[in-house]
Every structure is written in C-alpha cells, then in structure tokens.
C-alpha cells in the first residue's frame, strides 16, 4: 500500500537560506503524524510548501498518487489537502458562519455544506452560539476552533494543523488536544506540527524530530516519548 502523502528529499529555500534541507517522511491514511522541534526548525515551512504557498527548491511531494510540484495553492485544497495555518488566520471581519462557508469554497453540494457546518457547531458548540458574530471578536482558543472547523469544511483526506495549541490557556489547550483525539478516533488523517511535544507525541502514531531543516530522529509516538535525547531536548527533563 502506498502512503497518502509521500515527501522525498524536500528542500525549501528563502533566497540563499535553505530552511528545509532534504527531508523525507510519509503519512498513511488514518494516521496521525507529528513534526516536532524548536522554532526555526523548518516545520511551518514544510507545511506551507505542502499546501503550495511556498515552492520547493528540490525533492518530490506525492499526495494521493499525484505529484504536487507546480500545482498552485488554490488547487491543492481541491485534491483533499487542508491546512489550518499557524497563528489561526481566520478572516476577522467575516462572521463565523461565513468563515466556515469559505472553508467549503470549492464545494457545490449546498446540503452537504450545511450538514458539515452543523457538524462543526457540534464539535465546537461555542461557534454555533456565535455564528453571526465577526470572527475577529473571538478569543484565541475560539479562533483556533474556527480555524480547525474551517479546514474540515473542505472534507480533506489529510488535515494539516500548524501549532494548534500555541498561545492558548491550559484549559483551552486541553480542549483543542481533546478535539484532535476525537478527530483521530473518527478516522481523520492528520499531520500535526506542535511545540507541545509531550502532547503531540502521546497522540501521534508516528513522530519526526526536526532540527535546523533536517529530520534528526523518527519513530512511533511512544518510542520518541521515551527516547532519552527527546526527553532532554523537548520535554524539559534533565
């Protein structure tokens, strides 16, 4: 069986600076795979390249059997790859309902869209209560819920979440992580970038540790969680 997402020797540069220096990994359907690492390791750059916002300088990306090289960003989502970006990036002056509808921008099935909006409200009841409110008035955690709900609206085969717990209160962080567990249980394939390595590894099937543009260590979530060098570097243990 071939993987849903196959990344081979991916390289990405900003001008002369190479931010991602030839990484390879894959995501199988139904899996949760996480990329962990410090700021500047190249995790966000990797996701932005997968969704077409950045162009790779080398390597191959194959998604669902199709090469993604030179496919413009606005066409990648229609292949089934959704991206909930770092910093949430909801549309602040549109309402919550309008944000969700934009997540389904390329879909034509009106009834299905309505059903999925309802599903997002079931997943995050606070969004349902405030559906007519401008998204910019939501708290950080609520905006994160909206960003995830919006990404799900395209009915993705693979959901990429970039730092979903960043800057959130501990309670909100627990809620977001619980949602990811829930999505995983319902069979959603997820590529998760997280600074909260403990949380990310404990719910991931596969994990990769990135340092300055390279993957330095790979393994199952549990293996990495118990790996001594990982515990020292990312889980704050001496």
């Amino acid at each position, binding site marked *: 069986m071939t993987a849903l997402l196959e990344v081979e020797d991916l390289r990405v540069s900003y001008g002369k600076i190479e931010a991602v220096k030839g990484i390879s990994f894959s995501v199988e359907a139904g899996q949760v795979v996480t990329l962990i690492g410090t700021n500047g390791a190249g995790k966000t750059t990797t996701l932005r390249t997968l969704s077409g916002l950045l162009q790779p300088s080398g390597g191959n990306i194959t998604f669902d059997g199709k090469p993604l090289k030179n496919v413009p960003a*606005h066409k990648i989502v229609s292949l089934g790859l959704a991206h909930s970006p770092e910093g949430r990036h909801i549309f602040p002056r549109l309402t919550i309902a*309008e944000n969700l509808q934009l997540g389904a*921008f390329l879909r034509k099935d009106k009834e299905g869209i309505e059903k999925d909006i309802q599903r997002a409200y079931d997943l995050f009841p606070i969004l349902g209560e405030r559906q007519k409110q401008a998204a910019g008035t939501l708290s950080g955690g609520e905006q994160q819920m909206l960003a995830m709900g919006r990404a799900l609206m395209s009915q993705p085969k693979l959901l990429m979440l970039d730092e979903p717990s960043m800057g959130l209160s501990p309670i909100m962080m627990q809620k977001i992580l619980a949602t990811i567990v829930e999505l995983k249980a319902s069979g959603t394939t997820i590529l998760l970038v997280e600074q909260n390595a403990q949380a990310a590894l404990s719910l991931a099937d596969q994990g990769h540790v990135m340092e300055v543009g390279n993957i330095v260590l790979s393994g199952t979530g549990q293996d990495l969680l118990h790996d001594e060098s990982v515990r020292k570097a990312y889980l704050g243990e001496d």
Partner: protein
Amino acid sequence: MNTLPQQLANGLLLGSMYGLIAIGYTMVYGIVQLINFAHGEIFMTGAFGALTVYAYILPDGTSMVVAVPLMLIGGGIVSVLVAVGAERFAYRPLRQAPRLAPLITAIGLSLALQEVVRNFYPGADKDRSFPSLDGSHDIGSVTITDADIFLVVAAIVCMSGLAWFVRKSRTGRAMQATAQDPDTSQLMGIDTNRIIVIAFAIGGFFAAVAAVSYGLKYGNIGYRMGFLMGLKAFTAAVMGGIGNIYGAMLGGVVLGVAETLASAYINHIPGMQQLGGSGWANVWAFCLLILVLLFRPQGLLGERVADRA
C-alpha cells in the same frame, strides 16, 4: 440659479462622479495595497473609448437614447482592458517587489497613457467635443440636466450592484477574504490572481461610467482630464477610508458637496471676499482632506488598523 438647494445638487452630482472613480482606487488598494495612480487615465481612456463609438462607429444622427448605452459599452471595454492590462503586465510582475516599485510604475503608466492618447488619438492634443445631454428640468428651485439624471441613475445602479455583489455573491465573498488575508484565501481554494483581475475590472468599468457621465455633462474631454479627477477621487477614497467601498462613495459625496459649497459661499464671509469662486475649489477640497486626516487618519468609514491583524 445660485440657491442653496441648487448648490447642494451640484455638489452631490460632482460627488457621485468622484465616488464612481474612487471605487477603483479603493478596491485595488483593499486587495493588493497598491495606489493605482494610473486610475485617472483609466477614466480618461474610457471617455475616449466612448467618443470613438459615437464619432467613428455610429452613423451621424443616431438618437442619444441608442447612442449612450453603446458609448457606455465602448468606454467600458476600453477602460476594463486598460485596467486589466495594467495589472497583468505592469503590476503583477512587481507583486513581490518593494512598495515603491509599483508606485513609480503607476505614475509612469499614467504619463504614458496620457501621451499615447495625445499623440495617437485624432485631435486629442486639444480638447475634443463630446456629445452632451443638456435637456434641462426644473424640480422646485433646482435645475438639472439629462446628463445629471444619467449620472445619478448610473451611480445608484453601480453602487447598489457592487454592494450586493460583494456581500452576497460567491466571488464577492472571495474578494472580502482576499482583502483580509490573501495567503489563507488560497488555502480555501480561492484563485487570488483572478480576484485581483476582477477588482481591477470593476474599478475600470466604474471609471468608464464616470467618464461617459463627465462627457455628457461638460461636453468636452481631453487627454489631461484624468489627472485632476483622479486626484480628487483618490482624495475621496482616502477621506472615506481607503479599502472601504462605502467609504469611497461617501468620501466622494462629502468632497463634492464641500468643495461646491465652499466655492459658492466662502466669499460671503467678511474678510474672505477674495477667496470665493471655482478657482479656489481645489484648495478647499484638499484642505478638507487634511482636516479629515488630522482628526480621523483612518478615514470616515475606515477600519482601525488593529482590526486588520
């Protein structure tokens, strides 16, 4: 003739024209943060497009009822092509360049378009006469012409059409999204290049509507007509809050009314006798801009910058 209601009507009419042109500045700025200083010339080429239809395509003596819609189409096609062409060939290659580069390009394009029309359009080195609609009507103490009626109806139709389009249509929603966050819009599947082209095209068409109104009202057009009208419309867009389509229309009307009233009445103030008359209209218009920017830098309907985060 010089009653207050008449002056107000004159101001509203002039303001509607500013507002129609201001839409082009504000939509383009809202989406790509570019001040398209060639927009005044997009307005000007629209006037020449309309004149071409009237003077060279339609047979002599065509009724104006038939001619005006066809002139609108001709002017619209020319303005839209110039606007979309400018985006495609002048601005798009500079999308990632420092801000100053597209700005200078816009100024250069503005001069180039003026010179092209002056040198290559027959008789355009001087003003050319444009068919005017001067049948007049008295409404109480106010006299308006057929051209004024055309302008008001066109402005209302255009503005309400645009408001509907931006709020309700799928493309309009995509346009709002692109203005707020272009990268994330692409993640939604929105082809942002297409949205940018549509913004330029709408601005171009509205400029052509204003240009036809201008010709019908004043009876002549010239290759330099876009400079001052463009500058005033840009002022209107900034005053209303650049990026906001309602602000553009409001800014246009406020500017038109203010400059008309100022040039009609300021010389009645003791000690300011020599400051009256239309020669001072531009002075008052730009004074008003400075005042608005001093007390409300984001413009009358502008968003606070913090909301754009």
